[in-house]
């Protein structure tokens, strides 16, 4: 018998629910929404970083970038699987929604990234912010999600180190490198602050997700934890924090970001996949995927032929 929402709320705790449980649709829908968003973000993050495999200025950086992009596709694969196990949407549906511009993903991955000095803004700050959030998701009530986070967080640790190493190198490089990196930081900083979304009283999905244990920390708590750790790091590397958006630390260690200093119109147009540059990235990826549609058709045909006896060979 399907569990009712009240029972889910009562039982909600770390790794409490698995595909063996008959969970109500509200829970499965909310968990799917989170996982799909997370998986899409991995794919679009990889999309943004792939040009830097080629543009890496050393052989070992190139290897590290290729491995990072590969890891992110692997995380996407893992998260789509965890999402599929909720029985709401198949991976094909989620990937096709992402291609069509219906799939949602992190605000930062809607912005184009073209220069090397921008790479630590994603690979250090955004990934660092993501690490904060992902670490708390190890306590998610949906066991497959929490389990996926074990692997993701482990690998993400290397990515953040890699990003930090690029940042350190740039900020210890020539004055030109330092100047370009500071400019990239100023451009990306407001977007990074928006990573955690608007303050909690404006967030719509949080209450239910928190009540059923899918989320364990609020946006504000996560933002505070991130700032406490990354503001000092930015300063250590010689980055100057821009005067705006204004941010202020309270006596209790929490931070207030003056929300009016951030562009929420842009943020919400991004959230609807309507921001032009982001839309360009969505469509460019869609075209690349359409170009290899013929291969997927060959695989599907084989699978259809193999069906009814034995399963088709894995499509790797």
């Amino acid at each position, binding site marked *: 018998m399907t569990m009712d929402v009240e029972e889910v709320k009562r039982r909600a705790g770390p790794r409490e629910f698995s595909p063996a449980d008959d969970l109500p649709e509200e829970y499965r829908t909310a968990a799917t929404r989170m996982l799909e968003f997370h998986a899409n973000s991995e794919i679009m993050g990889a999309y943004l970083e*792939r040009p830097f495999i*080629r543009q890496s*200025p050393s052989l070992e950086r190139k290897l590290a970038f290729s491995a990072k992009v590969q890891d992110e596709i692997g995380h996407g694969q893992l998260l789509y699987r965890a999402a599929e196990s909720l029985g709401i949407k198949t991976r094909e549906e989620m990937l096709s929604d992402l291609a069509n511009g219906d799939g949602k993903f992190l605000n930062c991955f809607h912005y184009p990234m073209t220069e090397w000095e921008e790479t630590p803004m994603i690979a250090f700050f955004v990934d660092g912010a993501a690490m904060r959030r992902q670490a708390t998701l190890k306590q998610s009530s949906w066991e497959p999600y929490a389990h996926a986070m074990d692997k993701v967080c482990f690998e993400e640790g290397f990515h953040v180190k890699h990003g930090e190493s690029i940042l350190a190198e740039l900020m210890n490089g020539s004055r030109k490198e330092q100047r370009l990196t500071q400019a990239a930081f100023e451009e990306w900083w407001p977007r990074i602050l928006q990573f955690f979304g608007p303050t909690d009283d404006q967030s719509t999905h949080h209450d239910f997700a928190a009540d059923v244990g899918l989320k364990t920390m609020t946006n504000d708590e996560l933002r505070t934890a991130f700032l406490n750790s990354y503001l000092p790091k930015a300063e250590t590397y010689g980055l100057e924090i821009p005067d705006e958006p204004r941010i202020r630390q309270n006596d209790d260690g929490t931070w207030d970001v003056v929300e009016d200093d951030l562009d929420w119109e842009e943020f919400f147009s991004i959230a609807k996949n309507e921001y032009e540059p982001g839309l360009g990235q969505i469509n460019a990826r869609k075209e690349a995927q359409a170009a290899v549609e013929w291969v997927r058709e*060959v695989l599907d045909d084989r699978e259809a032929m193999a069906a009814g006896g034995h399963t088709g060979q894995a499509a*790797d």
Partner: protein
Amino acid sequence: MATADGASYAGVDDLDGEEAAEAVERLLFRLADDELVVAERYTEWQVRAPTLESDISLANVAQDELGHARLWYQVLERFGHDETDLIWERDPEDFRHGTLVEQPFADGDWADAVVRGYLYDVAEDERLHALEDSTFAPIRDRVGKVLDEEAYHLEYAESWLERLAGSEDGHERLQDALDRLYPYALTLFEPGDGTTDARIVEMGVRERSLGALRESWHDRVDDYLGSLGLRVPPLEPSERADGHVSPTDLPDHVGREGDHTDHWPALFAEMTGTYEDLGRDHATRIMDDDE
């Protein structure tokens, strides 16, 4: 691991004379440059492969090849080079890879990636096996690790060939790619000058000549692809004493003596753009050395 006179070279200093050192260096440049450029092209498929699974697998192959390039460049460092002059500040005309590996992929042409990977992997397999008992220890010591990984690449390429060849559309695309790429694949076996390859075999650095490797390669490729119903162009037995195949079988640009297609300088400019823009003068090491 020995020549007729039992020579064995523990390191660069043991090579007799400049000509011997130059011959080994030339062989290493071919190895390293092939691996670097083939990998560089493979990475174009990252985030663009047909499925998430194939995306991950091809990235594995690319990273293996990059790792092999790194390993062979590290051997070249023993000849007095560093990564800066081996890659980042080298004149693109000084690169010695065959032109097979520098060809761009047309959008969505997964058949090209599969056929190119296969032709390259078989060539690599032949070449590396002929180096297993090399008299030059720094090569001999590294071949085993590289061969292990190449075996997986070959298996991977074959599994894709079999899947694609089984459909009409896939078969046609494979044949197109094969017809287009076969002449380029022959560049992998083209000797550069007229004397180096003979010297390399004479010194026992590689057991077999490029011409002999080419014949084994062709027979394997012909057998296997033939079994999938694909048509492999015939290879005229090499009548020329210098080991070259007939120029009419080769593409206009071979690459081995720095004669590249226009795709190479364009690719090289993309690869070195950051290094140039930032005015870098060294390449960052972030991993431990293998040795």
